[in-house]
């Protein structure tokens, strides 16, 4: 039995999103591992967004000093790491505070340090300034943001040197990791979470076009709304939905709500706020992903799993997920930031429901072909075995 401490900043198990979904699936699929969680955030979160299975022995909240930069300084890191429970492996889920604390805890306990990245924090911050899934937002001045990006790139290079194993959930993320200094990256593409949604019940007379994401600038929800405004005119019975929490960036959420009203969408566009996403899949006719940067988005994966055709920007692994390999396409890929292309692609699918349904059917087949949770878990089990038996260990570099 191996003891693994997941070290997460701002995400698992309190905040919903891709990292939490991934962590929940990983913990659930390795029930014989003794899990603990170190949760880094500026203030303790209330309740558990992710239901914790019995194999999670404890969750330790590590309160971080606020607004001091994306990575705490060395004494702070050491103090935070000392509060983590003993484990064989410290597995960080992001670069930044989590990677620094996990590496320090591994050194302290003579344990292994594993790093898995979803989005690449420095690159996401350089695109939009945040907020990232970790909850971090850079200061508003361009100079400060540039400094934060540089700090995160430095921490990435340091973490890659210190880690016994570096993994990415996407090929696109792995390429960025290598650019930032990682010499060895294992790509472990995650499967979709187990589906419990009932059969689809699309209303073809009033198609529902949805975006499933946190309402933050990185997801370009404003771009989706502007596309909807133009689609609404050409498809008078269509309806639009933004499925996802509004509290990650309340000001941006308010801007999006005001924009929807201003462009005349009225009650044809709704925001669900925090919700059980699963309940919406059967009703969505098309998923639109207007993200400006992604790794391997769960929303696209889940849409494919539920037979929902996808129109997605060409970010992260989206093109490969939807178009790559021998199977027919499961959606349409458009250039990032190109609202015209989104409108054209969605409009074409709304006008051809049979073609849209065929894309959805292929999506299901692609997800099945991509593997399951057991295969995914086996890859992490092999990594944990390798780094704890010594064959994958390297001497820890000086900090």
């Amino acid at each position, binding site marked *: 039995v191996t003891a693994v401490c997941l070290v997460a900043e701002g995400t698992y198990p309190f905040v919903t999103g891709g990292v939490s979904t991934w962590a929940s699936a990983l913990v659930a699929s390795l029930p014989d591992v003794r899990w603990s969680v170190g949760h880094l955030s500026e203030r303790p979160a209330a309740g558990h967004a992710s239901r914790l299975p019995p194999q999670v022995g404890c969750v330790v909240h590590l309160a971080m000093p606020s607004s001091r930069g994306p990575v705490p300084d060395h004494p702070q890191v050491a103090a935070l790491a000392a509060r983590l429970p003993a484990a064989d492996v410290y597995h960080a889920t992001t670069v930044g505070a989590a990677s620094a604390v996990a590496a320090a805890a591994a050194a302290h306990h003579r344990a292994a340090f594993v790093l898995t990245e979803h989005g690449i924090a420095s690159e996401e911050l350089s695109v939009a300034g945040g907020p990232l899934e970790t909850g971090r937002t850079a200061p508003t001045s361009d100079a400060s943001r540039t400094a934060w990006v540089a700090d995160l790139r430095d921490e990435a290079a340091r973490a890659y040197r210190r880690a016994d194993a570096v993994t990415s959930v996407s090929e696109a993320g792995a390429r960025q990791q290598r650019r930032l200094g990682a010499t060895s990256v294992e790509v472990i593409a995650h499967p979709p979470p187990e589906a419990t949604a009932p059969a689809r019940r699309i209303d073809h007379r009033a198609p529902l076009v949805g975006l499933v994401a946190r309402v933050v600038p990185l997801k370009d929800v404003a771009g989706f709304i502007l596309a909807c*405004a*133009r689609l609404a005119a050409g498809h008078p019975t269509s309806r639009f939905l933004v499925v996802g929490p509004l509290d990650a960036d309340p000001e941006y959420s308010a*801007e999006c709500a005001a924009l929807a009203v201003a462009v005349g969408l009225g009650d044809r566009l709704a925001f669900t706020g925090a919700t059980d996403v699963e309940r919406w899949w059967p009703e969505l006719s098309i998923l639109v992903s207007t993200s400006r940067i992604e790794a391997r988005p769960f929303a696209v994966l889940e849409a494919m799993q539920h037979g929902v055709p996808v129109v997605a920007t060409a970010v992260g692994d989206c093109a490969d997920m939807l178009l790559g390999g021998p199977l027919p396409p499961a959606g349409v890929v458009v250039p990032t930031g190109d609202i015209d292309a989104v409108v054209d692609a969605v409009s074409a699918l709304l006008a051809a429901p049979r073609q849209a349904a065929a894309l959805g059917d292929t999506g299901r087949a692609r997800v099945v072909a991509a593997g399951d949770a057991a295969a995914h878990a086996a890859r992490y089990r092999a990594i944990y075995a390798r780094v704890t038996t010594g064959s994958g260990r390297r001497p820890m570099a000086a900090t």
Partner: protein
Amino acid sequence: MQHEVERRTDGVAVLRVSGDVDVSHALVLRGVLGDLLAEPTPRVLIDCSEIGFVDSAGVGLLVTGHRRAQEAGGRLDLAGVQPAVAHILQLTRADRLLTVHPDVESGITALTPAT
């Protein structure tokens, strides 16, 4: 993106912006507009003559700023919009909401209360 604020004695604030108004700079512009629109009955003119591109985040900021100004009994207008940006505003239907003046002078005249 660079910006500069001129607070005029006639009560109009002219916000001169140059470069691209996109998601990368939205946080900065959000802060600047937030300050200007927090004043009672704000009258804000954005000089767009040096703006080369506006993306969805920028359009969202302009439309939201316009709405906030109206709610406060004030105005937020644009001046000197270049053809490429005018095209984006038209495509996104934001041109139906935003008042655009040919140049800063005519914008200031329109925003200055009659005495």
